[in-house]
């Protein structure tokens, strides 16, 4: 008997199934399980105020993200330059900034790179697929246009969020995921810069992932 | 008998072994309070212990034997009242559990449990009484027993009762919901862990500056009082029933006829 068979038969026995029911290969999925797996049945949702933008910004700031509100995406470049300047991050060299290919229609400075994270860039700029007011999270997915490593390697992560991408609850992101042709390999709900409290239970920012997260919230 | 007496609910007092052996005044105080609340009180002789020591040690057979004795001894009463959260928890929550495979005894245990109440909860929630015309001119802090708190949801009732005691100043301690380290056999099986827990509790009691500690469970009170007196702290320890019934003018728990409070102050 393979380990798989043994474990499955242990389970069947533990659940008091009759031997014929438990027989591998003829096991039929019960109707309620099959229905459940269609997905969509929500549980109790916590209250979230209707003003999603205000709620989002409050949640994000509470987890130490900073938020800049911009009328259109065209203002992003100016804001990025200003932000990095105010944080004292020098990005004058080629390779200092990597932008997700999905954002290539924005007129970034010439020397900004594109693609997955090289590992030596100081800043990444990515879009997201949604932002969740309930938790203050940005949701990013991995693919060729939005490589996942951009979310984790650089010290500074700048995310472009459109107000139209704002949803109330985490569960509101799921229909979006289900509508995709293929589920992305990595779906990240990112709620703040990287942190740890592993030394004497005191919070330090910038454990392995970014130590700075700046959100460009576009109102269009 | 008079009409009032005929209508009075008949309460069987489950004394608890710690009150029976250690501090009879709590039993008499409970009777007094129940009578003031308009009840007729009887104390059946066939009770011994609720059976917690056996139950918590995994000896289900002994627990069931004791449970059957107790259930039988209290047949016919309108209510069974218990001056202890942990013993009440045992009777109410765990007696039915013990008989989950015996339908007849399960039914009896459930019927029995439905008539059982911890003392403070009975007075306030069932009899609707919270003022016993008591007086206790001291600052007091209150210890909630874990079983009373968590198994039976008892916390507000004692506060309501103390609210109406003239002269009593309640000073809540921090972390009232943290265990004092008694835990029945735990305190003698793991004495050093228990000592740490009771020392932490004593520190919180001291922090309030209260001159007295009240509670509803003799086990907890013996434990905390024992540590207080080893540390020569003057805090006096009583069961709340004694204070409420105006019977807290004798020696406190752990105090003798000779004993002078460590501070030398008069009581």
């Amino acid at each position, binding site marked *: 008997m393979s380990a798989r068979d043994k474990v499955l038969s242990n389970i069947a026995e533990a659940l008091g199934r009759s031997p014929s029911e438990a027989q591998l290969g003829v096991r039929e999925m019960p109707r309620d399980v099959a229905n459940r797996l269609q997905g969509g049945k929500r549980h109790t949702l916590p209250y979230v105020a209707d003003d999603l933008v205000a709620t989002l910004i409050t949640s994000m700031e509470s987890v130490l993200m900073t938020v800049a509100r911009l009328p259109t995406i065209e203002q992003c470049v100016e804001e990025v330059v200003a932000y990095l300047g105010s944080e004292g991050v020098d990005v004058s060299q080629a390779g200092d900034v990597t932008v997700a290919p999905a954002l290539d229609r924005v007129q970034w400075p010439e020397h900004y790179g594109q693609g997955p994270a090289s*590992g030596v860039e100081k800043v990444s700029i990515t879009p997201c697929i949604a932002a969740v007011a309930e938790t203050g999270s940005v949701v990013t997915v991995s693919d060729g246009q939005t490589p996942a490593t951009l979310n984790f390697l650089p010290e500074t992560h700048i995310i472009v969020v459109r107000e139209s991408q704002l949803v109330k609850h985490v569960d509101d992101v799921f229909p979006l995921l289900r509508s995709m042709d*293929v589920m992305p390999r990595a779906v990240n709900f990112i709620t703040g810069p990287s942190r740890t409290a592993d*030394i004497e239970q005191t919070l330090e920012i910038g454990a392995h992932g970014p130590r700075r997260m700046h959100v460009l919230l576009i109102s269009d | 008998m008079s009409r009032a007496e005929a209508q009075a609910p008949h309460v069987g007092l489950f004394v608890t072994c710690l009150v029976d052996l250690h*501090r009879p005044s709590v039993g008499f105080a409970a009777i007094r309070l129940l009578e003031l609340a308009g009840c007729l009180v009887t104390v059946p002789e066939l009770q011994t212990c609720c059976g917690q020591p056996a139950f918590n040690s995994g000896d289900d057979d002994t627990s069931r034997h004791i449970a059957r004795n107790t259930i039988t001894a209290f047949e016919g009463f309108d209510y069974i009242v218990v001056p202890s959260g942990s013993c009440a928890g045992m009777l109410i929550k765990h007696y039915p559990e013990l008989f989950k495979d015996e339908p007849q005894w399960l039914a009896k245990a459930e019927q029995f449990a439905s008539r059982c109440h911890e003392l403070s909860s009975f007075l306030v929630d069932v009899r609707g009484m919270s003022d016993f015309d008591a007086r206790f001119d001291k600052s007091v802090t209150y210890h909630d027993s874990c079983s009373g708190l968590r198994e039976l949801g008892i916390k507000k009732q004692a506060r309501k009762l103390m609210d109406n005691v003239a002269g009593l100043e309640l000073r809540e301690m921090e972390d009232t919901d943290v265990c004092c380290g008694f835990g029945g056999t*735990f305190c003698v099986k793991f004495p050093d*862990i228990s000592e740490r*827990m009771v020392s932490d509790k004593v520190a919180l009691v001291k922090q309030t500056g209260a001159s007295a500690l009240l509670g509803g469970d003799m086990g907890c009170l013996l434990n905390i009082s024992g540590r207080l007196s080893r540390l020569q702290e003057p805090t006096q320890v009583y069961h709340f029933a004694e204070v409420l019934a105006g019977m807290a003018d004798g020696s406190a728990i752990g105090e003798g006829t000779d004993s002078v409070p460590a501070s030398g102050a008069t009581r």
Partner: protein
Amino acid sequence: MQSQSRSFKTNASTALLDDNLKQALGKVKDGFIGKRAAAVALVPEWQQIRNDARLLKNHVLENLDHYLLAYESKVIAHGGHVHWAQTSADANDIIVDICKSANAKTVTKGKSMVGEEANLNEAIEKAGIQPIETDLGEYIIQLAKEAPSHIIAPAIHKTLEQVSDLFHEHHAQYGLHERLVDRAALVNEARSVLREKFRTADVGITGANFLIAETGQHVLVTNEGNGDLTSNLPRVQIVIVGIEKVIPTLEDASCLLRLLARSATGQHYSNYTSLMSGPAHTEDTDGPEQFHVVLVDNHRTEMLAGELREMLRCFRCGACLNHCPVYGAVGGHAYGWVYPGPMGSVVTPVMTGIENSPDLPHACTLNGRCAEVCPMSIPLPKLLREHRRQTFIKSLQTPSARYGLAIWAAIAKRPALYRSLTSIGVRVLARMGTRQGRFRRLPMAGAWTRERDLPAPQGPSTFMQQYRASVRGKSPEHRLDSRQSGS
């Protein structure tokens, strides 16, 4: 991990004398406890969400095989491999084989409790491969060659100074020659050293918080981002996970995630909550080439079959440990194995044998604070009593405990005998103790009287004796119960 749970009592006694430990554990009150309370207070729907979670998980357990098979078929459809391990040793063999096939020299690891059960790092090392823990707390104790003492904060028992010492000793090889004393500097140092390890690792191994049957994804929750770096960078990704972690859908994951971070650290959401699946797609420009999931039983089906099934709802948040006053006094190492505190005392006897951990279920006052805060409503005191039942039946309690209980039981079952013996005992003790009101010392009461006085019985007799005397001659309403025995 080798079990040291037999020596719980000795370990506990030693731990109680450790001032560093006392200080470290003292921080839990405002830390994990205070923050959790604050976070929960902001969610009026907390009890409903908790109830939803309990019901959903019970449903899963009743259909565990179906959900595991559904998860497996999705993983395979996405190009991943699913392996089943009955025992921890089997899991290790499978993982070492994968690493060897990948010609791995180094392996980065995210924190995995089921990996600790299996002593996975040791197995990897024995195969000549270097495992590197990437969660900062796990990294610290890996340097110290110690076991984790808390399931969320493995290095909770370490002071800043001890961490400085460890880095000073072990990071010289990376060019660190000064002794860093600043917390931020130490975190930075770990960041830069581990960054290299992330990049050069051949294999990345993580645990999983949940497995989603609907999509074939696993959920990985971290604050540091180390789980994602471990999963995204190496060529080969392995997930080791207990079979009880499967849940049906994305919405079910969302329900549990609302409880997880709040219960564990008091955050409303952890920093990185990632849903991951499978190897890289053709259009991905990063991600692993190979993806493996190792499903581990290790006594879980045993719990499923018996009185301990509810323990399988546990998702290892650590709330019970944080709120347990016994854990708070002795810390995690005293428990002697992977899992400390209330959930550890339930799980350890199952996974390592009750004969190897007979004290654990008894090292508890049954105060119930753990069950109150458990997000999955696991009745921990009830499960601990079940173990006590087993230790009683198997005579695993100490002789003195057994005799004491037997004698007490013989008396308590017999009201007449109880009355007569207790009246004698009380009379004697009351007389001895009336003046002082307490005993500093008493034969047979050594465990109590070491650090406490024993209050003397009020006396002069028992309540029942006094009551009987007081009602003699009173009106019928105050009569004794008419069924009194002829004593």
